[in-house]
């Protein structure tokens, strides 16, 4: 790996931040969506994390493996938001957020996304929705995203034993919510 070039060091913080984070935003969004199960909440979560990270650009430049580190920051922010919402449903807008009327995004859940949704996916998502946030997080990170329990010890900042028992309970719950008959029926429906 070559040392950081003088050219790169001289670049403004904005481009460093954008260079580093741009390739990671979709990944963060995907994890955020897995945690929250909602497009609106995933967007808010990613936005909050980016707002917090920008002032830490210099620190970010020194991190070797960015993804697990970012996943941990995202998870912390998610836990904070769950706690905060338990206290009061009202949050203040993050500074710097624009007029929502100026930035109307395109329809995010358009017909294509709808069509893509299989019968299957609907059932699994509805079942995931019924897990508590801790169980859903460990299950989606492990069984969907493919992180090992050892990696999750760092990302979710919980001991292995705790994670194992959360995963165990989450899977038991899912198996109860999604019985085997449903699986065979699914195969028939999907041909």
């Amino acid at each position, binding site marked *: 790996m070559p040392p950081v070039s003088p050219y790169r060091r001289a670049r403004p913080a904005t481009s460093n931040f954008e260079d580093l984070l741009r390739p990671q935003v979709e990944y963060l969004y995907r994890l955020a969506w897995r945690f929250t199960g909602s497009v609106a909440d995933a967007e808010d979560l990613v936005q909050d994390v980016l707002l917090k990270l920008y002032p830490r650009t210099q620190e970010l430049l020194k991190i070797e493996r960015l993804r697990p580190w970012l996943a941990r920051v995202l998870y912390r922010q998610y836990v904070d938001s769950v706690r905060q919402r338990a206290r*009061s*449903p009202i949050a203040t807008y993050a500074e710097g957020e624009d007029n929502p009327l100026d930035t109307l995004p395109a329809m995010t859940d358009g017909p294509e996304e709808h069509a893509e949704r299989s019968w299957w996916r609907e059932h699994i998502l509805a079942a995931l929705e019924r897990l508590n946030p801790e169980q859903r997080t460990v299950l989606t990170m492990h069984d969907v995203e493919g992180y090992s329990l050892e990696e999750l010890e760092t990302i979710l900042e919980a001991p292995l034993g705790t994670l194992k028992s959360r995963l165990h309970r989450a899977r038991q719950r899912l198996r109860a919510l999604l019985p085997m008959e449903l699986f065979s029926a699914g195969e028939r429906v999907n041909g």
Partner: protein
Amino acid sequence: MECRDFTLQLDDYLDGRVDAVRQRSIQGHLERCPNCRSRHQHAVALQAALRTLPAPTPHPGFVDQALSRATRAALSSAHPTWRAVIGMAIAATLVLGVALGVFLATQPSPVRTVALTLERPETVRLIFNSAKPLQAATLSLALPENVELVGYGDRRELSWQTDLRKGGNLLRLPLVARGTAKDELVARLSHGGSSKTFRLKFEVDNAGKSGM
């Protein structure tokens, strides 16, 4: 090995966290016990389905928008323009963001319609834009039959005491429809002697579960 032992070891077995000796004894039990065999097949099918569970990609423009908001927030100390744009003389007003991040402009009519899909949580965002800070305002919600606030079970009446700051105050309502909703959701914000009421109507879609 007993069935109970198998159940306890199933997750370790699925994840390849058993040594060769345990693995042989589990496999031996699976060959003999049809119940545990079907439990195992069920678990394997579920794991396979989870591994291919897709996630949506962000809407086009989200990446640019999110990055530029993050950098602009730090660069500019100016107040975000939206406060001025939506700022109104009344104490609190509302911009309703229907689920999926789509915000609508405030119209004279305070009744809005929100589309929900049966059993699928969606977050409806309301922005209370307050002309001045309000201490200890009361926010109350009356939910129509068949619409739940996620995490609150079937409670129909909810209220919170909350401070509103000057400018935008975001209220997120994760809602899920359990059936057809006939009535409206009523959100009332009161402070001192005055109050403001907002109403939401629901259109509940059956997610293509009808044989249409």
